[in-house]
C-alpha cells in the first residue's frame, strides 16, 4: 500500500514540475524593474523620422536635440549651439556649437555634421511652412564648430522655429541611408532607442550624452490608447506617468478622481493653449459682428471651466494664455450677460418670437461641429453651449463627428461654429496666427478660426516686424480681433499629468511636446 502511495506521489510530483516551472517563469516576467520609468503613450511613437509627418511628436525630445531649446516663457536656451549671434539686418545667424557632443552611436557632432543635417530640409519646398526654410539662402562652415546661416530676408522668429520638434533636430549621418532616408532614430539626446514596435518603445540612457545624465537607466513608453485603461494602469502601478495633450491625455474628471488616490500625484499647470469657438463669418448670421458679440456674451466661461473641466481650466479672454510669449495685453474675462446679448441681437434685426429668433422669415439656427476625438469633452461642451445660447433664442444644432469627418468639414467651412485649439508652445503665437487666420495660408485640415482680408494685412504686418515694433504690431492683431468680435476664447485648459508616488521630482517642461522625464528619480 505504502509503495503504491509513493509511486502516486512521485508521479504527481513529476506531473506538477512543468506546471511549477511555468508559473515561476510567468512570475519572473512580471517582476518590476525599479530602474525603469513606465510612461504611457496614446499612440505608437513611430519611426521618429525627422522629415516625415507620421510619428508622434512627444518622443522626439528624448532622443534628438536641436540648436536651441524652448525655455520657460519662450526664452530660447542653448542646446547644441552654445551661443548664437544675429546680424543687425537679421539676415545672418552665426552659431557656435558645443564641442563635447557625440551621437548615441559614437559619431562626433560638429559644424559639418550640423550643415549636412540642416541641408536635409532647409530651403526645400516641403518645409516652406517654416519661415527660416522659406527665407533660406545658403550655409557656410567657418570653423570646426562654427556655422553661419544666411537668409534672403530677415525671419523674425527664425530662432524660435529652430526649437520646434521636427525637422529641425539633429541625427547621426550613419543613421541615414544613401537615398537620404532615415533608417534609425539616433540623436545626441539623453536617451537612445533600443526597441521600437507597435506596443512599446524602449529607451536606455545614452552614455555619450553631453548634459546631466538621467538618474535611472531605462524608459518604457507603453502604447495604451484608451484613457480609462491608462488611469487604471497608473492606479495598479503598471504605469508611472500619464497625461499631456500630446503624450497620453488625461481627462479632467478622471484627474479629479485620481487626486483622492493616495498612491497617485496629480500635477496641473497653467495651460499653453486656448480652446475657442471659431466662426464661419463668410456667410449666414455670423457674418454680422453683433451676432458674434452676442454669442460671446451669452456664454458662461466660468461654469465651463468649473463644471466641464472640473476646475482644471481657466476662463479665457485672449487668443493665447499668458504662458505664450507676445500673448498681448490681458483682457477682462467676459461675464455672461444675457440682457446685453439679447439687445445686440435685437439691434441686428433678429427678433425673438417665443423661444426662437427670426429675421427675414428665417430662424436663427447655427450648426456646431464637435468631435470628442479631436477635443476630448467637446460633446459635453457643445451641449452646454447649446443650453446657454438657447436662452438667447439661438438654436444650435450639434453635429457630433469622428476625427476625419470633423477635419474634412472644418477644412471646407461646412459649419457655422466649430471648436478650435491653438497650437501652443513652441509654435505660438506665430504658428496659430499665420496658419489659422491668414486666408491665403493653407491650413489643411486644421481649418480657419476667422477669415478676413483686412485681418490678413494686420497679421502679415505683425509677423514680418522685428524688435520692439513687433510687440506693438502683434497687439494690433489682438485689438483688431476684439474690435471685430473675430474670436470667442472659451478656456485655457490646464496641463494635466498624473504620476505614481514612487516618482520623485516631477516637473513639467515648457511645452506639451516634451516629455517630463528630465529631472525625475525613482524610489524603489
Amino acid at each position, binding site marked *: 500500500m505504502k509503495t503504491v502511495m509513493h509511486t502516486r506521489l512521485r508521479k504527481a510530483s513529476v506531473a506538477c514540475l512543468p506546471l511549477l516551472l*511555468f508559473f515561476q*517563469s*510567468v512570475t519572473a*516576467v*512580471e517582476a518590476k524593474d525599479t530602474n525603469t520609468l513606465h510612461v504611457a503613450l496614446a499612440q*505608437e511613437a513611430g519611426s521618429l523620422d525627422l522629415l*516625415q*509627418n*507620421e510619428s508622434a511628436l512627444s518622443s522626439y525630445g528624448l532622443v534628438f536635440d536641436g540648436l536651441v531649446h524652448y525655455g520657460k516663457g519662450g526664452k530660447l536656451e542653448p542646446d547644441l549651439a552654445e551661443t548664437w549671434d544675429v546680424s543687425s539686418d537679421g539676415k545672418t545667424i552665426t552659431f557656435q556649437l558645443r564641442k563635447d557632443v557625440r551621437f548615441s552611436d559614437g559619431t562626433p557632432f560638429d559644424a559639418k555634421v550640423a550643415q549636412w543635417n540642416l541641408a536635409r530640409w532647409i530651403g526645400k*519646398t*516641403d*518645409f*516652406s*511652412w517654416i519661415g527660416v526654410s522659406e527665407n533660406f539662402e545658403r550655409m557656410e562652415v567657418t570653423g570646426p564648430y562654427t556655422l553661419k546661416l544666411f537668409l534672403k530676408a530677415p525671419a523674425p522668429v527664425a530662432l524660435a522655429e529652430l526649437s520646434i520638434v521636427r525637422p529641425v533636430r539633429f541625427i547621426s549621418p550613419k543613421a541615414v541611408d544613401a537615398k537620404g532616408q532615415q533608417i534609425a532614430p539616433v540623436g545626441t539626446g539623453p536617451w537612445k532607442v533600443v526597441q521600437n*514596435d*507597435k*506596443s*512599446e518603445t524602449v529607451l536606455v540612457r545614452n552614455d555619450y550624452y553631453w548634459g546631466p545624465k538621467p538618474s535611472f537607466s531605462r524608459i518604457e513608453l*507603453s*502604447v*495604451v*490608447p*484608451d484613457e*480609462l*485603461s491608462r488611469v*487604471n*494602469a497608473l*492606479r*495598479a*502601478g*503598471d*504605469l508611472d506617468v500619464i497625461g499631456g495633450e500630446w503624450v497620453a491625455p488625461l481627462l479632467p474628471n478622471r484627474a479629479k478622481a485620481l487626486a483622492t488616490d493616495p498612491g497617485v500625484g496629480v500635477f496641473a499647470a497653467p495651460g499653453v493653449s486656448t480652446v475657442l469657438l471659431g466662426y464661419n463669418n463668410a456667410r449666414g448670421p455670423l457674418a454680422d459682428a453683433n451676432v458674434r458679440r452676442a454669442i460671446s456674451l451669452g456664454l458662461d466661461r466660468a461654469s465651463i471651466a468649473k463644471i466641464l473641466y472640473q476646475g482644471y481650466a481657466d476662463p479665457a479672454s485672449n487668443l493665447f494664455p499668458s504662458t505664450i510669449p507676445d500673448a498681448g495685453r490681458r483682457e477682462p474675462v467676459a461675464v455672461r450677460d444675457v440682457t446685453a446679448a439679447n439687445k445686440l441681437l435685437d439691434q441686428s434685426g433678429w427678433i425673438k418670437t417665443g423661444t426662437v429668433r427670426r429675421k427675414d422669415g428665417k430662424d436663427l439656427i447655427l450648426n456646431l461641429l464637435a468631435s470628442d*476625438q479631436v477635443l476630448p469633452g467637446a460633446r459635453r461642451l457643445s451641449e452646454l453651449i447649446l443650453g446657454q445660447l438657447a436662452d438667447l433664442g439661438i438654436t444650435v444644432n450639434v453635429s457630433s463627428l*469622428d*476625427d*476625419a*469627418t470633423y477635419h*474634412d468639414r472644418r477644412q471646407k467651412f461646412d459649419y457655422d461654429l466649430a471648436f478650435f485649439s491653438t497650437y501652443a508652445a513652441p509654435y505660438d503665437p506665430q504658428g496659430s496666427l499665420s496658419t489659422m487666420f491668414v486666408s491665403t*495660408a*493653407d*491650413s*489643411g*485640415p486644421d481649418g480657419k478660426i476667422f477669415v478676413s482680408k483686412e485681418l490678413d494685412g494686420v497679421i502679415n504686418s505683425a509677423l514680418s516686424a522685428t524688435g520692439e515694433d513687433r510687440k506693438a504690431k502683434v497687439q494690433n492683431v489682438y485689438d483688431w480681433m476684439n474690435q471685430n468680435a473675430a474670436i470667442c476664447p472659451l478656456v485655457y485648459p490646464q496641463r494635466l499629468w498624473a504620476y505614481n508616488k514612487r516618482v520623485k521630482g516631477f516637473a513639467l517642461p515648457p511645452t506639451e511636446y516634451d516629455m517630463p522625464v528630465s529631472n525625475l528619480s525613482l524610489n524603489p
Partner: protein
Amino acid sequence: MLKLFYRRLALAICLVGVASALTFALIASAPGNAANFLAERAAGPKATHELVQKIEHDLGLNDPLYIRFFHWVGNVADGRLGESLRTGHPITEEFAQRLPTTIRLLLGGGVVACFMPLLIGVAGALSDGGVLDRSLRVLAIVGASAPNFFVGALLVLLFSVRLHWLPAFGTSGLLSWVMPWVTVGLFPTCVLSRVVRVTLQELMSRPFATTGFAKGYGRTGVLVYEALPNLAVPFLTTFGAQFALMIIGAIVVESVFAWQGIGAFFIDSIRFRDFPAMQAILMTFVVFFVFVNLLVDMVCMLIDPRIRRSQFESA
C-alpha cells in the same frame, strides 16, 4: 465526404467573393478622398490640385468601380493588400506584426468559451432547478448582457487596481493574457452555457436517457454517458458562430487592454480613413467568419453520421 467538402468550400469561396464586392462598394462610397490624404503627405500644405489628380490617376481612382474591384482582387490574389495610407507601409507587413496578437486573443478566448460553458451547463443540469442552477442562469443572463468594455474595466479594477494580481494592460506574459481572454470569452461562455443547459434538459427526456436510467445509471451517469455525446452537434454549431463573432469583440478588448492586434488596427484605420487597410481588415473578418463556419460544418459531419447521410441524400 471529400466531394461534400469541395462543394462546401466552393460555396464558401463564392460567399467570400460576394462579401468582398459588397465591402469594396461600401468603402468606395464612404466620404473622403484618399488622393487628398496622399498628396498632403507627399507635399504638405503645398499640395496642389494637379498632384491630387496625378495620384488619383496613378491609383486608378477615376476608373469605374468594377474595374477597381477586379484590380484589387488581382492584387489580393498576388498577396498584395496595398499600402496603409496612415503609415505608408504595406498592409501585409502590418498584418504580419498584428495577427499573432489577435490569434492569441481568439485562441485563449476560444478555450474559455469552449470549456467554461460545458462546466457551467453540466453543473446547472446536475442541480436541475436547484439554487446553483438558478444562480448560474442569472449569471449567464447578466454576463451576456454586459458589454465587453465594461467587463474588461471591472476585471482591471478588481484584479489589477485592488488585488494587484494581474497586469492592467499589455502582452508581457501569461498573467497579462488572462483578463483579455476572459473578457472576450465571457459573452460566448454565457450564451453557450445556456445552450448546454437547455439542450441537456431536452436530451434528458429522450428515450435513450430513459434507457440509461433503466440500465441502472443515476442522473449523473445518464448525463455523462448518454446525454453529453449527443450534445456535440448543437454545441459545436453554436460555438462556431460565437467563436467567429469573437473577432468583433476583439476590437473592443484589444483597445481596453492595449493589445496591438487587428482590432486596434481596424479602429485606427477607421479614424484616419485608411481605406485600403479598412478593406483588408473587413475581408479578414469575412474570411474568418466564413471559414470557421465551414470548419464547424465539416466537423459536425465527421462526428454525426446522421448529418453526413442527410447531406449525401440532398447531394
